[in-house]
């Protein structure tokens, strides 16, 4: 998810926001903060007997565990580990005593400072926006533990040291748990100094993930595993074409299926409720619905692409203008057109939520990625106030952006179904209040929309006689992700359509980037690395093509143009050095390189590809270099690069959602092919040492992967692939 145009620096405006929210609202950094409205003194007393909670992020229990409340969704990207490490560092804990749990939905305490007043996860911002906040939380907790020890032992605080969870002074020794009760009675200090990063002992080291054990024993709880007393399982029949609505419903056969309890209409379709998923699924198979398709998308993707291509010769909304592209007469003009298909996120856990709706309260269990937005939409649907909606965030089985959407689609469906059951006309209201577990099938997911938009790009460059790039024109055509949502900036080009193209790390004197924003009933959404999924591909394959036109080595060509971007240059240099760019490869192999900045991090990949005697392309090895500022938990950074490489590779090789006359052609993993283990290259990750504050890692591994592989394929076969996925052009 993007945030390029709504970002505040956590060191500047957003830090002030944090202090405002917590300090100004009178709840943050306060002993004994609890979620209820009881008096502070009562809270302090109650808490002292149990645990020490110096602020909204840290709990120290008498059993000596330190729990960090994680305001972000753990969906695999490692926030339970990374965010916990930040607190552990400043409080000087032993890693083994640290615990992580999802924080409740509460935008006042747990907003993403990069999003403003919204609690949510995305844009690779979790560590970035939490860095200072959690350092302060950990340091404040440490100061209180030290003060408690000083008071207990009658020694000055300056004579006390804390190391690996042990507080000591001379012969005195205590654990955090020993001191928790006393610490909870002390006043919370302001402006506690943070550590000099040079003295970090945990941050920057390999720390075991906090969620590995429960995720290797089947004990981790995802929304699909949540069971509530009296719960019904729901599936929804949605229209075959985007934008259609139910016209007639014949539920007789569906209701005759053993285990089916009720069939209700909701705004997005028709829900079948049963005592089990299997019964609900069978009930849906028996359901007969006709659809009003007067407002539906009836174009196929071929027609959409043709419509977009027709826009390419026409000037679009201006995004970037430097110099005068039209005034340049180069020695040579190079042109290229690209098409990028719709892509589904297809997280392993299909969309699922459990909803319990009562007259004045709504409880939701979900791998919730957008708590504040979801609270608002759930409240609106249920006819409640947002504060009457409680969200229990549980582990998400992947997301890649899918679980965060401004319409809260699957959450609203769940609440709509629960609300329909409360209607007195439905079985006399006797199903009112029954918890509902909504499960999307894989087919629902693949056909359900909210795709990475389909885009067409047109590029043109003018080269001088010496091969220098004199002019660069880049035109993008596609739907807006942000239009109509809270991050929309009406009148301005959607930043998520052009990020990675508007600014590039190459110095070219004349540059024009413009945008045609199209509309369609096909719902679209951010998809791991968002705009850079397509812009980086166009920019990095085109620059490679220009290097070839200039008869220069693609690395040398980039270096010359990148002189004014030393951070990009350093990442590029590290990747090519570690890959052995100049070393020979086996016959039938070739290398390609690409570098891209996204979410404030810079990543370069060198891909090695081979082609067998049947012409089949295989990616053998990827060497990655990343500059993400301080790598808080380097092994998680590596895992995110490995994952980004595999995720990006599957998409460029064979990822595509296509439609025939508006109906999605794919349905499950057989037709929407994703990368499998036998297609996964060997991966090496190198992290650029940095003293700068941490930046994103969840998404930035994706953008340079596709162009690095395409450039390697071009080097090997001479074929420049510009229509994705590659499977349409070569054997993969």
């Amino acid at each position: 998810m993007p945030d390029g145009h709504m970002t505040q620096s956590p060191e500047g405006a957003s830090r002030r926001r944090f202090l405002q929210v917590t300090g100004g609202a009178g709840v943050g950094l306060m002993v004994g903060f609890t979620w209820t409205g009881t008096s502070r003194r009562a809270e302090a007393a109650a808490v002292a007997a149990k645990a020490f909670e110096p602020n909204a992020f840290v709990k120290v229990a008498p059993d000596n565990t330190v729990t960090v409340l994680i305001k972000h969704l753990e969906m695999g990207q490692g926030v339970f580990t990374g965010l916990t490490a930040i607190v552990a560092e400043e409080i000087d804990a032993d890693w083994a005593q640290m615990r992580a749990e999802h924080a409740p939905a509460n935008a006042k305490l747990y907003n993403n400072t990069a999003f403003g007043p919204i609690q949510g996860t995305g844009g690779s911002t979790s560590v970035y926006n939490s860095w200072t906040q959690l350092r302060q939380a950990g340091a404040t907790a440490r100061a209180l533990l030290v003060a408690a020890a000083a008071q207990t032992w009658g020694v000055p605080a300056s004579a006390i040291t804390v190391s690996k969870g042990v507080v000591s002074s001379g012969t005195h020794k205590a654990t955090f748990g020993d001191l928790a009760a006393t610490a909870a009675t002390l006043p919370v200090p302001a402006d506690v100094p943070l550590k000099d990063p040079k003295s970090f002992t945990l941050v920057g080291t390999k720390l075991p993930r906090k969620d590995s054990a429960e995720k290797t024993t089947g004990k981790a709880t995802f929304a699909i595993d949540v069971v509530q007393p009296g719960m019904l399982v729901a599936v929804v029949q949605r229209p075959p074409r985007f934008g259609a609505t139910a016209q007639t419903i014949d539920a007789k056969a569906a209701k005759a299926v053993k285990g089916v309890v009720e069939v209700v209409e909701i705004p997005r379709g028709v829900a079948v409720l049963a005592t089990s998923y299997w019964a609900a699924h069978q009930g849906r198979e028996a359901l007969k619905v006709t659809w009003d398709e007067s407002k539906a998308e009836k174009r196929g993707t071929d027609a959409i692409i043709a419509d977009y291509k027709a826009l390419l010769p026409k000037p679009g909304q201006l995004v970037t203008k430097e110099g005068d592209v039209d005034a340049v007469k180069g020695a040579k003009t190079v042109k290229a057109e690209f098409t990028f298909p719709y892509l589904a996120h297809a997280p392993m856990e299909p969309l699922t939520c459990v909803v319990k709706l009562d007259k004045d309260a709504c409880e939701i269990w979900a791998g919730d990625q957008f708590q504040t937005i979801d609270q608002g939409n759930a409240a609106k649907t249920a006819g409640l106030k947002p504060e009457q909606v409680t969200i229990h965030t549980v582990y998400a089985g992947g997301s890649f952006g899918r679980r965060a959407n401004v319409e809260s689609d699957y959450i609203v469906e769940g609440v709509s179904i629960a609300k329909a059951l409360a209607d007195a006309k439905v079985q006399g209201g006797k199903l009112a209040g029954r918890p509902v577990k909504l499960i999307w099938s894989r087919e629902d997911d693949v056909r359900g929309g909210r795709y990475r938009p389909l885009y067409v790009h047109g590029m043109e460059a003018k080269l001088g006689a010496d091969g220098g790039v004199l002019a660069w024109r880049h035109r993008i055509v596609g739907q807006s992700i942000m239009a109509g949502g809270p991050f929309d900036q009406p009148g301005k080009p959607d930043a998520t359509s052009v990020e990675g193209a508007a600014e590039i790390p190459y110095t070219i004197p004349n540059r024009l980037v413009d945008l045609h924003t199209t509309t369609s009933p096909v719902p679209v959404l951010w998809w791991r690395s968002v705009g850079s999924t397509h812009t980086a591909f166009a920019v990095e394959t085109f620059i490679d093509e220009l290097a070839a036109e200039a008869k220069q080595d693609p690395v040398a060509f980039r270096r010359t143009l990148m002189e004014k971007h030393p951070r990009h240059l350093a990442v590029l240099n590290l990747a090519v050095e570690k890959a052995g760019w100049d070393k020979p490869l086996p016959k039938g192999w070739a290398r390609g390189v690409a570098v891209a900045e996204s979410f404030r991090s810079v990543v370069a990949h060198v891909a090695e590809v081979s082609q067998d005697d049947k012409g089949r392309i295989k990616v053998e090895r990827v060497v990655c270099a990343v500059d993400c500022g301080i790598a808080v938990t380097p092994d998680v950074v590596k895992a995110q690069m490995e994952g980004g490489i595999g995720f990006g590779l599957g998409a460029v090789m064979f990822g595509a959602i296509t439609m025939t006359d508006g109906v999605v052609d794919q349905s499950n993993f057989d037709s929407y092919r994703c990368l499998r283990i036998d297609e996964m290259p060997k991966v090496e990750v190198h992290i650029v040492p940095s003293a700068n504050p941490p930046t994103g890692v969840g998404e930035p591994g994706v953008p340079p992967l596709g162009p690095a592989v395409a450039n390697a394929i071009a080097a090997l076969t001479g074929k420049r692939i510009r229509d994705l996925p590659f499977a349409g052009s070569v054997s993969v």
Partner: protein
Amino acid sequence: MPPIKLTLNGKPWSVDADPDMPLLWAVREIAGKTGSKFGCGAAQCGACTMHVDGQPVRACSTPIGSIAGSKVTTIEGIEGKVARAVQDAWVKLDVVQCGYCQSGQIMSAVALLTDNAKPTDQDIDSAMSGNLCRCSTYVRIRAAIHEAAKALEI
């Protein structure tokens, strides 16, 4: 319809269900063991992988009535030195990301190592290619299977 009798994780299990109900849903919703996951419902992703009489099967596409009398083992019930070695290697190398597919990955890996004590990369790729991981933890799955094989040698 008489109940279907099986063994689940070493204990007798009598299921009163439609014989067409997939094993996965019987285990998840009737037996209440939720470690095995629903990912595709079509034997395409492997998230539901269980052992039936020692063999890895896709429980989402196995009708419960077709395996009456069988011994079913899920992630909650695996035991023995191979299972321990695999789970230890998974934790040691921090294989997991979102974790949703990992029960199935582990069930497939245990079956592989039970069959083949020293698999090559190619053996791993062919035994594990039915298990999708959208987080692409594949590099570490390969490494962890080698790690477990090494631990079992000692």
